[in-house]
């Protein structure tokens, strides 16, 4: 296994002795699932999947673009908008600014056009590193704008969701983004255009209850957690433990709410095939 290679590099040392190895701190990452400490580059080379246990790491927008779109084809929409802090929360603008510095992202979603094996698409990619991918007004507006661009350019739309749901910091205005994005999708639908929704870990709340569940085709990454209500809320409501595998992508597939679970390595080609299969017949 790859992990053995790391151990070899470390001269057979146990992971807890890694500080004695001549690799700078910060280049290591701990897998949430198997708890193994792994050299970041190896995770990166492996499509951000744990080389030890196969756990899918959540990935940054930039990495997703690299993995899905043809090289240098991504063009972000020129939509430079910012939150108005509609509930006048004291620390919210500060939080947004520090997240921008920390993550290098403008917001929890990036939208633009690109090519998948030469096929033009409009693509939206969410990022959990930015306030858990939550949907406030800016995220809602960017996604709505992207849907409108897909209609205008007559292109297929692909949205990679990862989100805790509607953004608390913007209250009711966040909630209304569910209706806004959903209404925009009715226009895409009427235009006869394809929308592929890709659910990644985790997709919850107001995002599940709006655009993420409305794809003509809904794909998910293996083991992604997907649901409407959070597990703690459900447990508190019903007063019992949840069954094994509850709200996983596999659970949703079994219950008929997604079309297909696709491994990360196959995502690009699956999207390409789906686009081809939706081109008008004769």
């Amino acid at each position, binding site marked *: 296994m790859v992990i053995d290679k790391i151990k070899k590099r470390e001269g057979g040392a146990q992971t807890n002795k890694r500080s004695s190895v001549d690799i700078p701190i910060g280049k290591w990452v701990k897998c949430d699932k198997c708890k193994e400490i792994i050299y970041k580059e190896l995770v990166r080379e492996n499509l951000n999947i744990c080389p030890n246990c196969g756990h899918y790491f959540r990935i940054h927008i930039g990495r997703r673009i690299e993995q899905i779109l043809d090289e240098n084809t991504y063009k972000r929409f020129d939509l430079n908008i910012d939150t108005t802090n509609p509930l006048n929360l004291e620390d919210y603008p500060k939080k947004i600014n520090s997240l921008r510095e920390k993550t290098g992202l403008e917001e929890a979603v990036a939208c633009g056009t690109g090519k998948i094996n030469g096929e033009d698409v409009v693509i939206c990619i969410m990022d959990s590193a930015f306030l858990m991918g939550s949907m406030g*007004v800016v995220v809602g507006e960017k996604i709505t704008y992207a849907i409108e661009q897909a209609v205008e350019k007559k292109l297929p739309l692909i949205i990679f969701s990862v989100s805790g749901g509607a953004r608390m910091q*913007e209250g009711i205005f966040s909630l*209304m983004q569910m209706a806004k994005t959903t*209404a925009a999708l009715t226009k895409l639908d009427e235009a006869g255009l394809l929308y592929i929704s890709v659910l990644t870990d985790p997709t919850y709340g107001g995002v599940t*209850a709006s655009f993420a569940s409305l794809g003509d085709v809904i794909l998910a990454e293996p083991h992604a957690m997907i649901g409407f209500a959070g597990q703690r809320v459900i447990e508190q409501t019903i007063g019992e433990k949840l069954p094994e595998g509850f709200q996983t992508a596999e659970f949703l597939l079994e219950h008929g709410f997604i079309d297909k679970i696709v491994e990360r390595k196959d995502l690009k080609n699956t999207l390409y095939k789906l686009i081809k299969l939706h081109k008008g017949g004769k």
Partner: protein
Amino acid sequence: MKSKMSAWEKVEIARSPKRKTALDYIEEIFDDFMELHGDRAYKDDKSIVCGLANIGEQNYTIIAEQKGRNTKENIERNFGMPNPESYRKAIRFMKQAEKFNRPVITFIDTKGAYPGIGAEERGQGEAIAKSMFEMAKLKVPVIAVVIGEGSSGGALAIGVANRVIMLENAIYSILSPEGYSSILWKDSSRYEEAAEKMKLTADDLYKANIIDAIIKEPREVDNEDFKKIAKKIKKEIISSVEKISKLSRDEIVNERYNKFRNMGEYRVKIKN
């Protein structure tokens, strides 16, 4: 008289078990109401009541979130917290409303969509999304009336309307103030402060263009007050429907679309 009630007091009023429910208003407002049942797929979920009603010659389709008026009814109606079947039933009635050219009147009153194992197994998120999707497309006038608690996606699922009317002491929010303060501040005891911050009162929502009209009501509603409130809702329904009905079917959809398209302000960043 200007009310000096705090947002939290309104939350308590909106939630009060004594507060009038959707069926109370429906029976008072419409000449006749016939409830019809079932989603045609799984069951008749009783948290949402659907049916046909009329005021004079004008027929309506009714979709209403219904809390129980006593413990027994509350259990039957799952305390007004819909399962996915409720939203699928609602969708069935929306489509029929369009087919038979009846305006849709919805009554919103829920703590939220039910967070349960079965609800997740049967696609709670998908049901809510589909309900909003179908509602956004309806070619007939849609009026939503928030009469009590309008909480979260479970409320908005039947709230994509041309006109959203709200009772003065009803609330409409992303989540309960308790949930909000516990998520945002990791402290569920700050719910009163959360309620103030959240802009969940009719006044705040009217100023923010989330709702279109407020129906005044006293703090304590006796039977006479209730009849007056119902009358005001009735008037608002009749005049709104009349107004919207002057538009073409496509214009009705566009009006609703534009309303929700513009929800939430943002500012344009100045480029460096």
